[in-house]
């Protein structure tokens, strides 16, 4: 009998029930993961359109500096605000945990679902409400505060669209908290008996560390946003100098969340990196314990460095010095991860699959992103770079270059599992290459523009200010990036329409448990009792089989050929 590695021709979680309500009201983590995936991609496109508006406006010659009207300036200020808010709250923060984490986490644990499936559904519905509030904001007014909502400007000097935006972000915060809570309980309580902490796949360590941050940090932005709301609607006074309040206090509250938040963005991407490098080097990850512990270290340190966003905010000099010193602490565990990934490749068997291309390019992108952070952690140089395009370039390198590329790499990696289809390779590789080149061309010039003094959030620059060259190349890069990402998305979508190209259960040769169930998985994840847990990176458990164009266990369990048999003593 042919191995049941692909189930597109029979019942699986995609076709088990049909109709809108069977999806919208589902508690199946896999379906929720997919809905998050497409919702996040839709919002990414929306945020991306605003990015294009920014870059096209800043193209030298597009706008006459002398005659740009107030309406045009307001439109630009609205564009960068919506771009930032949508990308941060609707896209990058939920992306990997909500879309990929939801799908993969229970599978990797050999479980049937997360700990609280109905809470999971509620999280998604909250996300939808948050998204709708953001769309409403676009229609109501001209939100122009920046995604950072600093008072007194946001509370006393701009229009009511702040209210719906802040409400939207507040609700999205709860979506994030509940997802994190769900993941923490799932990982604590639903691991199979043999899967001790240090036998967990590293993606789960990353998701766990992320969930801890989500749960601890997000409530603080929640209350901060609530305070902006009461400040704006009732003039409560806490941030308003005319009433005796302190605007810098808001910045402390805001960044207490928003700094750990950037690790919510990047840690899951790093978790995916570990999976990719192990699978596509056909080797255990080098330094497993280091990577696991560094994830926890990053989560902890992320909470004590927020003041590095505020070196020149008017906070005391002593605080600035302390925060600068502490900020370097978070650089070390990040660097350790990079070294361990590269060491995984040593004496491996490297495959240049599409996910691995994303993974390897992240070494370059995170390298630049992380290293440019050093300039910002250092007080002397941060004074020069604060609120210039240097910072913009830095955070795009880490948020897009690392988190987003990790997300895309993860989508390509788990796509065969999610949809049972293989993605057109050459097209996907072109998409990757154009995205990588376009991204670098967009943001490398911004480092130099910034070091020359080019401030952020400017609706236009006069030519004599000397930033034209940098803006020109940056906009050209944005076009290439747009092309690349479009092709990448197209490559994924195309797999739906291509006949054949079916994926086996294990196209890549991973050993984590999601690869030991058919593609796509059945409704309850595993056709029989879940697989036994072995070493998640013992690649010798599976071997390549031409007849399935994928990998199968060397020693399959009698009742299911997808699943590796591991004798109880070895587990």
């Amino acid at each position: 009998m042919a191995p049941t590695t692909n189930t597109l021709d029979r019942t699986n979680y995609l076709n088990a029930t049909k109709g809108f309500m069977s999806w919208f009201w589902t508690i199946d983590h896999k379906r929720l993961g997919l809905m998050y995936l497409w919702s996040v991609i839709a919002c990414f496109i929306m945020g991306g359109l605003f990015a294009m508006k920014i870059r096209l406006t800043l193209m030298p010659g597009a706008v006459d500096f002398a005659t740009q009207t107030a309406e045009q300036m307001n439109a630009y200020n609205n564009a960068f605000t919506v771009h930032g808010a949508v990308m941060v709250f609707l896209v990058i923060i939920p992306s990997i945990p909500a879309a990929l984490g939801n799908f993969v986490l229970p599978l990797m644990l050999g479980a049937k679902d997360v700990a609280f499936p109905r809470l999971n559904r509620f999280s998604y519905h909250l996300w939808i409400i948050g998204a709708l509030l953001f769309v409403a904001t676009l229609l109501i007014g001209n939100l122009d505060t920046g995604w950072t909502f600093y008072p007194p400007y946001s509370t006393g000097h701009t229009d009511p669209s702040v209210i719906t935006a802040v409400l939207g972000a507040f609700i999205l915060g709860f979506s994030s908290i509940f997802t994190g809570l769900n993941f923490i309980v799932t990982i604590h309580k639903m691991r199979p008996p043999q899967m001790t902490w240090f036998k967990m796949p590293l993606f789960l360590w990353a998701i766990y560390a992320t969930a801890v941050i989500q749960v601890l940090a997000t409530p603080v932005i929640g209350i901060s946003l609530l305070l902006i709301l009461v400040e704006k609607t009732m003039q409560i006074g806490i941030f308003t100098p005319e009433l005796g309040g302190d605007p810098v206090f808001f910045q402390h509250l805001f960044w207490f969340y928003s700094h750990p938040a950037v690790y919510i963005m990047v840690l899951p991407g790093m978790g995916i990196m570990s999976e990719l490098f192990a699978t596509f080097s056909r080797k255990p990850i080098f330094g497993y314990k280091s990577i696991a512990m560094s994830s926890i270290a990053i989560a902890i340190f992320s909470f004590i460095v927020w003041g590095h966003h505020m070196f020149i905010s008017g906070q005391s000099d002593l605080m600035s010095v302390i925060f600068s010193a502490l900020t370097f602490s978070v650089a070390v565990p990040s660097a350790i991860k990079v070294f361990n990934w590269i060491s995984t490749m040593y004496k491996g068997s490297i495959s240049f699959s599409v996910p691995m291309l994303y993974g390897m390019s992240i070494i370059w992108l995170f390298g630049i992103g992380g290293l440019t952070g050093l300039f910002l952690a250092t007080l002397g140089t941060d004074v020069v770079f604060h609120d210039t395009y240097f910072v913009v370039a830095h955070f795009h390198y880490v948020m897009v270059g690392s988190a987003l590329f990790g997300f895309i790499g993860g989508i390509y990696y788990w796509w065969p599992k999610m949809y049972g289809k293989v993605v057109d390779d050459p097209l996907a590789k072109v998409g990757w290459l154009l995205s990588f080149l376009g991204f670098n061309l967009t943001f490398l010039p911004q480092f130099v523009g910034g070091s020359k003094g080019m401030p952020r959030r400017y609706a236009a620059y006069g030519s004599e200010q000397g930033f034209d060259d940098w803006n020109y190349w940056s906009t050209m890069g944005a076009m290439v990036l747009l092309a690349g990402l479009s092709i990448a998305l197209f490559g994924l979508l195309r797999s739906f329409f291509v006949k054949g190209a079916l994926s086996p259960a294990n196209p890549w040769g991973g050993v984590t448990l999601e690869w030991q169930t058919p593609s796509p998985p059945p409704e309850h994840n595993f056709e029989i009792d879940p697989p036994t847990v072995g070493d998640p990176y013992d690649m010798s458990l599976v071997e390549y089989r031409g007849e399935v164009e994928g990998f199968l266990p060397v020693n399959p369990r009698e009742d299911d050929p997808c699943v590796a048999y591991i004798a109880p003593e070895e587990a």
Partner: protein
Amino acid sequence: MSSHDNHPEGVAHHFETAEQQFDSGKLGIWTFLLTEVLFFSALFVAYTMYRDNYPEVFQFASQYLDTNLGALNTLVLLLSSFTIAWGVRNAMLGETKMLTINLIITLICAAGFMVIKAEEYGHKFHEGTLWGGHEHSIFQLDASKVDPEIAAHSKAWSNPDGEFSAAVKDLDPEFRQKLGIFFGVYFCLTGLHGIHVLIGMILLTWLLIRNLRGEFGPKNFAAVDFIALYWHLVDLIWIFLFPLLYLIS
């Protein structure tokens, strides 16, 4: 074959055992309560920061809070924590009738708390002892900006009977302005707490309805247990608020 047929009763399909289900719920509610603590934390930090910078202002402002009503509210909440804790025991032992009674008493206490709070708030709106940005606030930097109607009857403003240590109208303008910040913090803290009491009342009512339907017993009391934990946190937050706001004169 899958093991769906012999799945334990009352256990959700994705859990193996009832114990796993209960343990998960317990960890879940504790994690959630941790997020609630952090949610309030920013307001406590605001309190600490402003009090640290303006200790005399906060001490002065505290005299406008009715310590007796605050103490009464504290007792009311403590009683409600006792009754809900007892209710959990009732649920564990299948004492449905006692659970109903305890839930009702808890609800009455919660309602009582809100009534007392409403009275306190109403008094403050009448007196003008509000955050500076409110149009009726007497804590304006410029004394001439105070609403004359409020100034006419506000005891805090003119201190006619000498019950306060000074009349607000005679205070140094900056000092007066900072009093507005105290009340900003006061209303945010007690307001957020009050919202949590209301949410608690909704949850307790839900428990009551479910109990009247006979849903709780020794094999199914998790919901009571977990909501009781939430209620204890709401009580605990008030235990912190009361001395910090009311007892610092």
